[in-house]
């Protein structure tokens, strides 16, 4: 698989070139355009129908789309253009056997060498923290495409580092992490608008995004008609 990231950094898309039998899995709705020599399969889990209903339900509760789309080239040299919902960037991460923890909306696509688990509960209570975030865990070997709201910046953590949860795109799990209040008191943290932060410790790569999707949503939501 070859790839190109186009229209960086504000309206980025990934343009992939697949050879026959190469496959890519992405969130539903990510496909913008493609050649006709590509077949599409919609499942609730892994390609070939794995995953099953229960896993699909779990994913739905995690806030992610229940279904995944698998695109497989049936002929050589097929192009596939994938893009995220939000204005922002797309980056490629090569997974070499480790684990990458990705914020749900930051996962755009990955190839078949990568296993995506949306049932990861590493943050436990984070789901109920009001941040509206969920997380997926990617393991294996292969290509992952990450997307951000706004620009993406990489931080090579060596030691300690603190990031607001809404600004995390992904991080290598060689990093230890702990959810913390941003300020000293719980009330102070939420009044300060920082909510929960993640305190990293160790050595590893961290992808951050310049803008915070839940903050943006909370800014727009109240201006809309109630549902």
């Amino acid at each position, binding site marked *: 698989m070859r790839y190109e990231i186009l229209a960086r950094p*504000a309206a980025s898309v990934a343009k992939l070139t697949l050879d026959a039998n190469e496959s890519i899995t992405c969130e539903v709705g*990510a496909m913008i355009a493609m*050649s006709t020599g590509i*077949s599409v*399969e*919609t499942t609730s889990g892994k390609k070939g129908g794995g995953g099953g209903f229960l896993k699909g339900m779990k994913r739905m509760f995690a806030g992610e789309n229940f*279904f995944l789309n698998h695109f497989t080239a049936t002929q050589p040299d097929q192009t596939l*253009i994938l893009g995220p919902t939000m204005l922002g960037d797309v980056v490629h991460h090569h997974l070499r056997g480790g684990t990458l923890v990705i914020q749900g909306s930051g996962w755009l696509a990955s190839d078949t060498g990568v296993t995506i688990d949306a049932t990861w509960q590493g943050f436990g209570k984070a789901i109920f923290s009001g941040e509206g975030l969920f997380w997926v865990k990617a393991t294996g070997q292969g290509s992952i495409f990450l997307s951000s709201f706004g620009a993406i910046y990489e931080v090579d953590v060596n030691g300690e580092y603190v990031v607001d949860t809404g600004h995390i795109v992904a991080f290598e799990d060689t990093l230890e992490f702990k959810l913390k209040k941003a300020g000293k008191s719980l009330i102070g943290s939420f009044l300060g608008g920082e909510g929960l932060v993640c305190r990293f410790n160790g050595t590893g790569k961290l992808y951050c995004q310049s803008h915070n999707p839940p903050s943006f949503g909370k800014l727009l939501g109240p201006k*809309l008609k109630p549902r």
Partner: protein
Amino acid sequence: MSELDFTISQRPEFAIVSVRMQPGQKIYSEPAAMASMTPSLTMKAGLKGGWKKALGRMFAGESLVVNTFSAATAPGEVTFAPGIPGDMLHYRLDNSSIYLQRGSFLAHSEGVELSAKWQGAKGFFSGEGLVLLKAHGTGDLFFNSFGAILEIDVAEEYVVDTGYIVAFEDTLDYKVVVLPGARPSKTIKNFLFGGEGFVCRFSGQGKIWIQTRYVHSLLSWVFPFRPSSSKS
């Protein structure tokens, strides 16, 4: 028709176009597209092409009204900006036609006619999808997008999600279908859950311009953030 003297800048995120006009020249734009202009130009709002054409434009998601900017006696400059941040392209029509997706028209010079193309079931079933305007004639045309515009040269066939089509040349044949590759038994599943319910399958030779973002995806994303209505 003399070609317009113009500059498109700030691509691809915040594209705008500045047109330098000579006395006697006219340019027609979507309402509210004018960002700034020299006072030597005059603007007139009106129903260009009469009621029937205006209504057609309305059905295609564009405004009934088209603003006309003319340089009467002195030269001048006008700058147009679309309502949504994104990209913009210029296309020169030479006794030819091009199709524009709903909402992507920005401005055109004299010699270009816009008309709505009723898609029949094609447009109807594509959901928000495919409502097209046809630009025909000889002159300059400007269209815009949400996100960047990518150009695709179709040699045989290509598939584009209906929501991401900005414009395409009329040398191409098109068909709105459910995502290909889905077996009939799976069609419903893909349609209901796949997100990419409807795609446009182009065939022939010609160019397609697609946008890298889709407003409706963004809207669906914002949706859950609305306040819930309290029954009082």
